[in-house]
């Protein structure tokens, strides 16, 4: 081994007068020459300029330097520049470091003498660091160019279509037998009032027929392992008791099935059979048997579906199937649910038949809904003459329910009131609201349309809803006049708060973080809104927070483009400033394993089987260095931030 003494060159930038105006650069150069163990110290007007960079390159060649310190502005500005410069003449870029003597020195003091002192010390700390810097190479990770999209509502479908169209295979998974999500339940959509099914169904069919998309419906995630680019996911496809290869979706079995149970798709407003198709336009157009309700599977008698199926598709001995998938990226598109009934006690929700939530009213309005698009009320099928809409039912309510604004309710309530008025011309829609929030294209105009078409807006929150005879009495207030208001309504629609559909257990399974309400947290609320802090996981749609359809679709395309970006190469580079393990020193205590936020460290037995030690899964390590600080014996060392380096830097700053 040659002498391991580094040949360091220091370049001090004047930055015009930005640095030189406060820092006495000739003095800094003089002191460094005298005090620091370096080969060369040179100053230049603008190191980042072409002549400046050339000077660095020439000096490296001439003085046979192997390490470089540039004392200039913040590393956030020109660290990449100078690292590129030095690597063009054969120096490892990680052996070039920046001493920030502008933002953190010359700009923050007027005292020239002290500024000169401080600049010298800052440069010395960096020289000390460079002395022990190792040449590093970015880590290369292979990428499985296949994506898994969890949740097949409009967000999941859009994400899958975008990725698939870019040429990469996608698995689109949903827990329900059909794709489509909540959007398939909606009647018309704001602010254009086009029919939800009409715009969604073609997308559903496209997803089904796309050669790059594999649908896995009626499926749930069982477990997940691996890391960015290389995930292994176990999926449980629930027993359907119907052979989907034989089933044609003809519905003969559905007609014959004698067992009825509340229909989830219509939110309990109607009944479905034990063998059922989620809705007529279901994709795939297939039926499943809901085992707990099936007379044969539960009680051993019936088999009518089997008897009548023209294709012999009924398969009572069907089992759950476990499939293991290998994917490079996952997109969460798990969406939302509406708030639980229990949380709205004073509104009688869940107790009073004629108090429904927004999605139930969507079904009532829907042409394929329980009343075929005629507006009737659930209790007696009467046409409601007066419908009260209650906004912020559980939203903006930190004391009793959700603190946040659910964002979509102002618009969908206006829409529902307009649609009601279209169906029942003489009907009276009344909306109780706190604020009408119309931030969106065409939204304010749509609100105006609602008032134009005869919707009465009352500014005040409702306190109590109860039944009196066959009427539903609503106690509200008009805060603008200060009057308490009592309305005798026929039907009440609560704009209940949105809440995340993904459970805490599900998030823990995927090791994703959620906010206090359970919405998935993005990597950065403004600049990285579709990424998560876990590499390889992306967010689409309302699983991240309340969103309307255009927003959910836009974010889905954003998530898809992130996945596509990841898939453009079959490998990816990872920052090499990660932690390592000195096996000889490691005692195998495992302290570092608990400290690591990325699960990048694991206990292993050494190859000779003699001792326990820790292995770093390099691709998972993000280089925070927490393990290095925690290791009691100094075996864990972050590359280029080793104990020795930081201690030397401290010395350099105090000399």
């Amino acid at each position: 081994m040659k002498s391991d003494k580094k040949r360091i060159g220091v370049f001090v930038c004047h930055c015009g007068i930005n640095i030189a105006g406060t820092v006495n650069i000739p003095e800094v150069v003089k002191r460094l020459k005298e005090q620091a163990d370096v080969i060369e110290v040179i100053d230049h007007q603008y190191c980042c300029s072409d002549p400046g960079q050339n000077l660095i390159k020439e000096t490296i060649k001439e003085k046979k330097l192997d390490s470089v310190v540039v004392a200039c502005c913040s590393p956030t500005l020109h660290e990449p520049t100078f690292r590129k410069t030095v690597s063009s003449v054969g120096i490892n870029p990680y052996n070039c470091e920046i001493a920030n003597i502008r933002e953190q020195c010359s700009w923050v003091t007027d005292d020239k003498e002290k500024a000169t002192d401080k600049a010298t010390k800052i440069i010395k700390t960096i020289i000390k660091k460079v002395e022990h810097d190792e040449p590093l190479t970015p880590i290369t990770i292979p990428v499985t160019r296949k994506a898994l999209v969890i949740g097949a509502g409009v967000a999941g479908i859009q994400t899958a279509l975008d990725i698939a169209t870019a040429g990469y295979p996608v698995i689109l998974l949903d827990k329900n037998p059909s794709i489509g999500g909540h959007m398939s339940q909606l009647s018309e959509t704001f602010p254009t009032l086009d029919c939800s099914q009409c715009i969604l169904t073609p997308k559903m069919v496209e997803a089904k027929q796309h050669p790059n998309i594999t649908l896995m419906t009626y499926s749930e995630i069982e477990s997940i392992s691996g890391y960015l680019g290389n995930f292994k996911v176990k999926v449980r496809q629930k027993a359907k008791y119907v052979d989907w290869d034989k089933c044609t979706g003809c519905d003969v079995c559905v007609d014959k099935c004698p067992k009825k149970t509340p229909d989830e798709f219509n939110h309990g407003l109607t009944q479905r059979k034990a063998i059922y198709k989620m809705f007529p336009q279901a994709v795939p157009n297939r039926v499943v048997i809901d085992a707990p309700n099936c007379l044969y599977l539960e009680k051993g008698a019936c088999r009518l579906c089997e008897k009548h199926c023209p294709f012999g598709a009924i398969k009572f001995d069907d089992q759950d199937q476990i499939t293991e998938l290998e994917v490079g990226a996952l997109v969460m598109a798990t969406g939302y649910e509406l708030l639980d009934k229990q949380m709205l006690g004073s509104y009688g929700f869940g107790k009073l038949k004629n108090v429904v939530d927004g999605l139930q009213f969507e079904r009532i309005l829907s042409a394929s809904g329980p009343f075929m698009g005629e507006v009737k009320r659930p209790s007696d099928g009467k046409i409601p003459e007066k419908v009260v809409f209650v906004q912020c039912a559980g939203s903006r309510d930190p004391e009793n329910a959700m603190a946040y604004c659910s964002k979509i309710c102002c618009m969908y309530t206006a829409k529902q009131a307009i649609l009601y008025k279209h169906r029942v011309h003489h009907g009276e829609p009344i909306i109780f609201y706190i604020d009408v929030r119309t931030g969106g294209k065409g939204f304010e105009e749509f609100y105006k349309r609602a008032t134009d078409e005869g919707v009465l807006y009352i500014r005040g929150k409702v306190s109590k809803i109860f039944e009196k005879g066959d009427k539903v009495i609503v106690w509200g207030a008009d805060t603008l006049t200060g009057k308490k208001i009592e309305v005798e309504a026929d039907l009440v629609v609560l704009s209940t708060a949105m809440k995340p559909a993904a459970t805490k257990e599900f998030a823990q399974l995927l090791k994703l973080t959620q906010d206090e309400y359970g919405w998935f947290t993005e990597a950065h609320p403004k600049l990285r809104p579709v990424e998560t802090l876990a590499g390889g996981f992306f967010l689409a749609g309302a699983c991240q927070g309340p969103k309307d359809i255009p927003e959910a679709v836009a974010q889905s395309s954003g998530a898809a483009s992130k996945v596509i970006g990841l898939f453009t190469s079959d490998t990816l580079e990872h920052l090499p400033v990660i932690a390592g393990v000195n096996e000889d020193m490691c005692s195998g205590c495992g302290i570092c394993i608990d400290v690591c936020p990325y699960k990048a460290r694991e206990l292993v037995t050494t190859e000779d089987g003699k001792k326990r030690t820790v292995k770093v899964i390099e691709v998972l390590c993000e280089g925070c260095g927490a393990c290095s600080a925690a290791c009691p014996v100094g075996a864990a060392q972050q590359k280029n931030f080793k104990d020795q380096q930081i201690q030397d830097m401290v010395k350099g700053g105090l000399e």
Partner: protein
Amino acid sequence: MLELIESLQEIKKDIELLSGQTLSDCYQCGECTAGCPTAFAMEPVPSQAIRLLQLGKFNEVLNSTGIWLCASCNVCGERCPRGVDYGKIADALRTIVLRNKLTHLTLEKIDKQFISDAPQQAFIAAFRKYTT
């Protein structure tokens, strides 16, 4: 024109201190008024009273009849989405008036027959809330 702030910031501090409520927490949804059993007779109604206090119109509320109509039933505080308990604010406002030795109720005002009929509890509660 409504003249804002009667430079009675001390009173605001007193109200918040005595009630334990933060006036600015109220976002005027009106749920308190909507559920209040005596709001029909109140002037101003609970949400308006809080609004007036937010605007600094302390005297207007302190001199109002509304604050004496609160029956301490606590529906407002129970349902308020922002955790503002108007019942406690009303209690604080009455206390401020009463501590200034301005009694609201005198025995002479009460019907004699009623005194012999009604339960003790009614009088104890009323004297607690209405007298200095």
